[in-house]
């Protein structure tokens, strides 16, 4: 089989939960693919695939005439589906790097609840990585740098310019600021 000379490299990106339910599923160029045109075909494929790979950390298998690479972390699996003759190492790197990028974006809590809560970050990140089956970027650091954080607060508070960060990090910052100031004061006093 002649290698694929075009840029269309990836057939699908999937994120499934620990029961095989889809959280994110994007089949690229659906109309061109022969196997997964309809939703029921796709779901059947995901179901069978899930039973093949769940809890088996094999990273890469051939299944249903496709090359599958995947990463399972916590209660979710990130899966990349590519044509059978695609470069195995390339596809795996992509999965691995996308996984890393998502991990960074989700503050190292890459699990089902976080994915659903920060779905905007997840979908933007995948889109910056693969567009329509074309690999857009593979470096995790650059991927992260391309995804915008959600607007920090609602418009109202922005307008009033009052911004009190009550998250853990905010408190931590306040604490360190206070201790620094205290240290300075003490030094001056001495």
């Amino acid at each position, binding site marked *: 089989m002649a290698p694929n000379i075009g840029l269309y490299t990836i057939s699908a990106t999937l994120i499934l939960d620990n029961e095989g339910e889809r959280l994110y599923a994007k089949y690229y160029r659906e109309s061109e693919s022969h196997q997964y045109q309809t939703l029921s075909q796709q779901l059947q494929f995901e179901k069978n695939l899930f039973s093949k790979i769940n809890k088996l950390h094999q990273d890469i298998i051939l299944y249903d*005439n496709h090359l599958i690479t995947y990463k399972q972390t916590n209660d979710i699996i990130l899966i990349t589906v590519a044509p059978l003759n695609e470069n195995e*190492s390339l596809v795996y790197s992509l999965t691995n790097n996308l996984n890393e990028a998502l991990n960074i974006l989700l503050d190292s809590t890459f699990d089902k609840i976080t994915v659903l809560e920060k779905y905007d970050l997840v979908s933007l990140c995948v889109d910056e990585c693969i567009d329509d089956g074309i690999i857009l970027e593979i470096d995790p*650091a650059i991927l*992260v740098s391309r995804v915008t954080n959600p607007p920090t607060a609602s418009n109202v508070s922005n307008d009033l310019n009052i911004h009190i960060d009550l998250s853990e990090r905010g408190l931590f910052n306040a604490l360190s600021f206070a201790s620094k100031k205290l240290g300075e004061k003490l030094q001056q006093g001495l």
Partner: protein
Amino acid sequence: MILRITYYISNTNQSAGGKTKKLHVRIYEYQSGFYKHLSIVHISSVLRMSAQLYKKNDAYSTSSGQLPDKMTIFQECLQQFNLSPVNAKKCRQLLAKLLRLLYHGEKFPSSESTTLFFSISKLFQHKDLSLRQMVYLTIKELSATSQDILMVTSSIMKDIQGGDLIYKPNAIRTLANVLDASTVSASERLFKNCLVDRNPIVSSAALISSYKLLPIAKDVVKRFTNETLETIQSLKQFPSNQFQLHEYYGSATTNLPSTSYMYQYHALGLLYHLRNHDKMALMKLITSLSDGSSLKNSLSIIQLIRYINKILSDDKSLITHLFPILSGFLKHKSDMVEIEACKTLIDLQHLINESDFMNIITTLQKLLSVPRTSTRFAAIRLINKISIKNPEKIIVVNLELESLINDSNRSISTLAITTLLKTMGAGTINDTGGEGVDRLIGKMTSLMDEITEDFKIVIIEAIENLALKFPSKHKRLVSFLTDLLRDEGSLELKSTIVDALFDLIKFLPDEGAKKLILMNLCEFIEDCEFTELSVRILHLLGDEGPNTSNPSYYIRHIYNRLVLENSIIRSSAVIALAKFAIVCGGDVSKNIEVLLNRCLNDVDDEVRDRASVSLNFIHNSRKDLIINEFQYDLGALEGKLTHYLNEAAFDNSFDINEVGVISSEELKSIDYNRKLTKLDSTSFAESSANERDAEDLTTNGKGGDDSNNDVANALLKQQEYAQQLSAIPEFESYGKLSSSSPASYLTEKENEFVVTAVKHFFIESQKLVVQYNITNTLNHLVIQDVSVIAQPDNELYTEDLIISLENLQPEQTGTVYVSFSTPNIDDEELLVAFGNTLSYTNKEIIDEKGNIDETDEGWSEEYQIEDLEVLAGDFVHPLYNSNFTAVYEQLSFEESAVVSLKNTKTLEIGVEKLLKQLNMMPLDGSEYVPSDSTSHTLKLFGKDVWGTKVGALVKLASAGGKVVAKVSVKSENDKVAKLVAESIN
């Protein structure tokens, strides 16, 4: 949706009045905010209400993983996006929910999608960067199902020109989805500017957008060629604030990449489609990019390697220029590049010499031991691919392979085992091979306890394959299989083992092996829980047992079944016993009669019936009714029966004699071939059974496997030919078709006219019909009065008639028949070569419908095509026999010759050529030539069209690039022996 409405109604019926009222108030509130294009306001409002209710019941619906309600999101989107001022945070969350629905597989109907699309486009006015990025993604996803999407083009283009760098690439990529063929040219200027942009991300986005636009606007994209070329060569860097969005990287900018060079990959991908018609330009591009460091990105190097592969598959002569480039990539810091280089080189292995090939193996060897699973997997997949055709080349990696048997990835260990079995096979011919097989089997025995059943099945098939190819190793392999048979296992597993053992009995030449397996099977049915398997084994015992040295041993085992088992097994045991009685005769027969008489009192009808029928046959010595000596050709039988039914001439009874009969020997030949082909393909189909890959690999091979398939289907094909020929009145009197050759090409496959020829022999009436299939590949010419002038160089062949072709339209295939009277086997000279010339009248097509000018007389032309030879192979069918030496000795007439084979450099090619020329079956695995050997013995067996057997023993020796064959042919007919010996060249 409808379901939910009913639920709502019943709910309100049950609920208290106050609650219903409250809901009504809500409707009013929302209705004031509705838009007129919602045609069914009332139903929507009901839905809205139900959704509200639904949401109340489950406050944490989204966070607990449940999908948000489609209608709720739809309504909320319309409401939020039209607010003023827009709440950016809320909108982004809403868009995320909308995307979640889309990525979950929900689809909005076209009208709703369009409504959403335009309400989202209102957000273009908002300044928040993060919201805008999200907007672009959503618009891109919705563009496939919405209408009038062109409306947003101008907003997007405005953003590309003056928008913020954050969402500019997103805007460019979205633009490609929105544009259609008529509007692309309007954005040409814009794309060009972005292509040469200093920012790598913007440039990449423009490149892949152009790539996506190729199918709809190739001519516009073609004008980007110069910009694309420039992009490959240039250095583009991120702006300094690239990494400032996230605190994660903080101030540590030093370790971060300043560019990813992905734009090189995208530019190369695009450029191929702009330049693929121009080979010289591609070559220039490859050479300019391949030296040293112009390509920085691994993906772009992979792309370059694929270019090279593509060019080489079109023009093999360029290998000398391109090979150094490829082999340079065998050592690269990125393993994906190394793998791609290996892949390409293995595809091109026929162009590479031995020592260069070893470099590939060395790289693969290194990759086998890296920690990354995917890389090991890729490497072993490639090694397995090599092992199919050239197992001897990878013996050097055996040690690595053995350590991979216990790999944590099951696909890898499966591939390691199947590959090892192949290399072991190649090794058995050397002295050290024996140890290798023993060690491997030892390893697998220990592995067998830990693995799943389907994996075991793969291994069993591989073992069978090995035993078939290398009969001398059968003892160890058979005992491995029988041990496995005794262990616990499902029906499927046991069936596979029994299948494997059956095949070994059929095809192993050694009597000892047969006895060993039969005895093991006897033991197995003593304690077998599967009725199905017992029945099959009993049937086999009945077929094979009577011909062994001590039939009474088997009779005892079979009789035990009669006493102990259920009725299904008992009835098949009865038949098996009857076979013993009729074949062995004498005392055995008498004893069996006693046993069968007892069965007449069996409680089961079937057993009693079979016993009495069998007894009757034994008394009347009707051997033919108990034992199948032959079988009808089932494909032909089916064809004839369908034909009979279609004709509906039921006054005449169906004539079974018209159907071809296959003797059990011939059946075995077909089975054997099918088996070998199948085993070859299954063992590399890998555990996940990807048949496409398997097919792909076989077709990549040298075509040797195709001929195997041909043999298996030959009978069916011949049946087809016979039907075609009998439909032509001129050939009606010729009688039964004796043999048809496979089609051979008389022209290049790329010529104006492609001609293939099939030789049909009618031995009884001494006729030869040559069928010329002519394809007209010219699309502007019609050819008429097509015929072939065939000049035999043997005077004994005289031409009878030509059935020419009146008219051949472009892109069509027509057939010309030329019929000859042939000499008989007793005549001097049977071999012949025909010089062929195609003659025809040209007429040009004048309009689009393909009509020709009636007044045009055209001009006649002649076209020389290649000669067609009649070889001994045309008179011989391959035939299987498990004991070549014995049969060969029995044949009376011998003829020998020493020939230096023309155009043959290696033993392998010689063997392949002989198989083709003689059309005989290679036996005892003699078609596999061990590597590095300088001599080889090929054992061939077949049956000629006159019904006599032919055996050939060919000793091949190679020296100095030449192959010499010493041929001894033995036959029951001296003329045939002479014929075969003479036709080797």
